[in-house]
C-alpha cells in the first residue's frame, strides 16, 4: 500500500473541511477524487502533501508516518497559481530542479513547448489558463511516486484539455500513483482506474473501476449524479 489515511479530520474554526476520511491508495493506479466544491478534496490533498496539518487521524506513507522527507516523492499541484511573482517560467524549472531530485528539466521544457509556454515569460503576467499549464508542466516533469493534481483541468480550454490528459496518461506508470480531483467527471472517466467519492468531508464510495462497475452497473458520471444530485 502506498498511502493509508486513517480517520483524518480538519476543522477551520468550527467549520469542518474534512470530517472523517479513511482511504488507501495502491501503487500503479490513477484515481479520480470526485465531489462537488467544498466536499474536502483540496484539504485532503493538502494534508497528504504536508501543507495542512490534520486535526485528528494519521497518514501512513509506504509504511511509516508521513513526514517532510516524503515530500521528495509526492508531487502536489494546487488548483490556484502559487509561483513566486518574481520568477520567470524558466526560474520555476530551476526551483523544482533545486529541490526535487526527481525533476527532469528536459521533460519540463518539452511540456512547456507542448503547452505553448515561453520560458522567458514572467509568472505574474500569465493568464489563469497559462498558469494552470505551467503548474502542470512543473508537476508532471517530476518522476514522483504520488501525484496529487487538484482540479488539473480548471481554467483550461477544450483543446488544451486533451493535451493535458495526454500528458497525465503518459506520466502514469506501474510504479506511481496519480490522484486527480475534479468535478468534470466526463473528462476523466476514460483515464482513471479507481474512484473516490467524497461528500461533506467523508468518503462515501471508493474502489477500483472494475469493482464499482461490477457493484453498481453504472457509469461514474451516473453514480456522481446519484450521490450528489
Amino acid at each position, binding site marked *: 500500500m502506498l498511502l493509508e489515511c486513517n480517520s483524518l479530520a*480538519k476543522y*477551520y*474554526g468550527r467549520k469542518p473541511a474534512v470530517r472523517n476520511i479513511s482511504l488507501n491508495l495502491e501503487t500503479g493506479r490513477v484515481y479520480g477524487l470526485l465531489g462537488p466544491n467544498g466536499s474536502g478534496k483540496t484539504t485532503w490533498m*493538502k494534508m497528504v*502533501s*504536508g*501543507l*495542512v*496539518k490534520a486535526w485528528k487521524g494519521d497518514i501512513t506513507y509506504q509504511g511509516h508516518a508521513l513526514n*517532510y*522527507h*516524503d*515530500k*521528495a516523492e509526492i508531487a*502536489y499541484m*494546487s488548483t*490556484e*497559481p*502559487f*509561483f*513566486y*511573482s*518574481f520568477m520567470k517560467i524558466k526560474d520555476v524549472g530551476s*526551483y523544482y530542479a*533545486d*529541490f*526535487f531530485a526527481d525533476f527532469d528539466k528536459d521533460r519540463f521544457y518539452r511540456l512547456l513547448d507542448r503547452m505553448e509556454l515561453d520560458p522567458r515569460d514572467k509568472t505574474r503576467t500569465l493568464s489563469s489558463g497559462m498558469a494552470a499549464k505551467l503548474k502542470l508542466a512543473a508537476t508532471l516533469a517530476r518522476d514522483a511516486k504520488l501525484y496529487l493534481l487538484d482540479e488539473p483541468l480548471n481554467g483550461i480550454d477544450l483543446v488544451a484539455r486533451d493535451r493535458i490528459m495526454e500528458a497525465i496518461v503518459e506520466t502514469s506508470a506501474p510504479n506511481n500513483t496519480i490522484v486527480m480531483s475534479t468535478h468534470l467527471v466526463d473528462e476523466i472517466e476514460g483515464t482513471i482506474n479507481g474512484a473516490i467519492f467524497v461528500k461533506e468531508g467523508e468518503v462515501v464510495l471508493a474502489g477500483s473501476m472494475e469493482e464499482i462497475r461490477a457493484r453498481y452497473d453504472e457509469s461514474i458520471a451516473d453514480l456522481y449524479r446519484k450521490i450528489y444530485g
Partner: protein
Amino acid sequence: MLKLFKYEWRKQIGSKIIIGCILLALCVFYVLGTLLKKDGWSELAMVFLVLAGVFASIYVGIESLLVLDRDVRTKESYMLFMVPKSAYQILAAKILAAICQILLTIVMFGAAFVICFTAYMAANESIAEMLDYLRQMVEQMFEVEIEWDMVALAVTSMFVSWINMIASGFAAIIAVRTVLSRTKLAGLLAFVVYLLINWGTNLLTGRINGLSTGEDTWMLYYSLGLAATAGITVVLLVLSGWMAEKKLSV
C-alpha cells in the same frame, strides 16, 4: 539549506538594489557638491543620506517579517512548504537571509560613508586631523572615553537585539497564523503578540541583569544581558520551528 537561502535572498534583494541606487545617487551628489565647493548640494545630500539611513534600517529590520507573513498567508506559501525541507531549515534559511541582508545594508551605508568621507578629506583636511575630530566629537557627545571592548560589546548587543527582534516577529507571525489562520485581524494580532514577546524578553533580561552585584564590572553586567537575549532568541526560533513543523497549515 543553501538553496532555501538562495531564494530567500532573492525575495529581499529588490529593496537592497533600490537602497543601493539611492545611496549611489546621493554619494555622487555629495561628492560633486564637495569637489565643486557647492555647500548646499553637500548639505542636502547629507540630510537625505541620514534620512535614507533611518528609513532603510527600519525597513530592512522588518522586511524579513513582511516576507514571512506573505509566505504563510498567500498561495506562494505552497512553493516554500511543498519542498522536502523541515520547518526548522526553512526558518534557519530565513534568519540567515535576514542577517545577510542587514549586513549588506550596513556595508552599503559604510561604503557611502567612506566615499563621502574621502571626498571631504580630498577637499579639506588630512586624514589624521579628521579622525581626531571624529574621536573628539564622539567623546563629547557621550561624555565617555572610547574603550574598544565596550564598542565591540555594544555592536554585538545591537546585532543580537536585531536578530532577537526578527525571531520575536517570526514567533508572533507563526503563532497567530497557526492558531487563528483564518482571522482577518491576524496581522494586527501578530503585532500585539510581538509586543507581548518583547515585553517578556525585556522583563527576563532585566531579571538576569539583576543577578550581577554592584561590585561586578560593567562588562559582566552587559554580557549577562547579551547572553540572556541570545538564549531567548534561540528559544523563540526553536519554538517557531516546532509550531511550523507540527501545527502550521498554509
